């Protein structure tokens, strides 16, 4: 039925490989402060272990329906890649949508702050604007050269522009999410965007366009354009200061992102690190800063 089909499709979309990794060049035994960042998102969870502010190990896995235990699972998964005992950790910071469910955290810090800090680490001090386009929310963050947040907004009220909104539309057109990008460019010329940014009304409009004889690709292009415009107007409230980094699941959707980057007029930065771990990196870095201020766990 309709609802089950949606859930199945959701699982297919998020079918990336769970992974853990240990940095071969770092020896935890000679580290002064070992800090742990755990980011429990609605869809995925990450754990990052840092030794004196350098990435020692990380894990990345699906949160699933088991949010209360995701922090423990992510932590166990990262430690599996190392020979470090858990009690060597000097400070643990929890973040993300499920940060209330990180029992081993010494404190929690919002995703906004952790994302900016993490982006500063993985993209470098030139990054000034971070746009995180997630499954259920859109975050636009401006930061300084140290990764401190100077301006931010988050939209999690309205599905337009989020991965979820895209999923609903892709369902309607019978196009799988990973094909959206490519198919949206299979048009002779770029059509005008659908007039409504509300996903529900855009769907009605789309049905009308299909009846008028528009191809699915053309309707998809019109919707991707509307979504790009929606995200653009959100981020314009902050203003986009170069350099720009784009993270989150929708970043892989070229149908929206290419149109958006064209509107913004910038090329987003690249990094050797997977941007998905940015939140957990930021959390671990905050832990490091707090240890340096003398707030680490007493041993």
């Amino acid at each position, binding site marked *: 039925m309709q609802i089950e089909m949606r859930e199945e499709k959701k699982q297919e979309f998020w079918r990336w490989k769970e992974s853990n990794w240990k940095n071969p060049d770092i020896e935890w035994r000679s580290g002064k402060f070992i800090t742990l960042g755990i980011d429990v998102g609605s869809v995925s969870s990450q754990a990052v272990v840092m030794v004196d502010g350098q990435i020692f190990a990380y894990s990345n896995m699906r949160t699933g329906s088991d949010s209360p235990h995701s922090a423990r699972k992510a932590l166990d998964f990262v430690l599996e890649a190392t020979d470090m005992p858990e009690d060597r950790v000097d400070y643990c910071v929890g973040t993300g949508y499920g940060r209330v469910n990180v029992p081993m955290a010494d*404190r929690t*810090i*919002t995703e*906004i*702050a952790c994302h900016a800090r993490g982006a500063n680490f993985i993209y470098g001090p030139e990054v000034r604007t971070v746009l995180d386009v997630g499954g259920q929310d859109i975050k636009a963050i401006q930061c300084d050269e140290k990764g*401190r*947040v*100077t*301006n*931010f*907004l988050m*939209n*999690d*009220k*309205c599905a*337009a522009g989020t991965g979820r909104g895209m999923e609903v539309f892709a369902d309607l057109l019978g196009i799988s999410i990973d094909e959206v990008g490519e198919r949206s460019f299979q048009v002779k010329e770029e059509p005008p965007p659908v007039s*409504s*940014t*509300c996903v529900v*009304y855009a769907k009605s409009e789309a049905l009308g366009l299909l009846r008028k004889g528009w191809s699915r690709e053309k309707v998809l292009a019109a919707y991707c354009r509307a979504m790009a415009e*929606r995200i653009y*107007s*959100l981020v314009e*409230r*902050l203003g986009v200061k170069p350099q720009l980094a784009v993270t989150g699941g929708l970043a892989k959707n070229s149908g929206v992102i290419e149109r958006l980057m064209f509107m913004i007029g910038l090329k987003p930065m690249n990094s050797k690190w997977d941007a998905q771990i940015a939140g957990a990196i930021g959390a671990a870095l*905050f832990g490091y*800063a*707090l240890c340096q201020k003398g707030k680490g766990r007493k041993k």
Partner: protein
Amino acid sequence: MLANYGYKDGSGDYFITINTDLCNGCGECVAVCPANIFIVVDEDPNDPMRDGPVAIVAEEKKKKLKYECNPCKPTQNRPPLPCVEACKTGAISHSW
């Protein structure tokens, strides 16, 4: 830091911006708001390195700002907003 709480949906932009560089956590906004939009917390959740209390928009209000703020925003004869008036440092602003 400019903390923009709220959202944009099909009908418009509804953001309350708190400038945390100006906010001193005095709590006057909390006292005058009829909808309990604001809370003062000891530490800025978005800026852990900042010391001192700060006002934030309550979590459960963020997604309903247009509706929660409606009592202070009638269609006619709109008075100055109580929260903006009460804030002596000018830290609060509304986008609508």
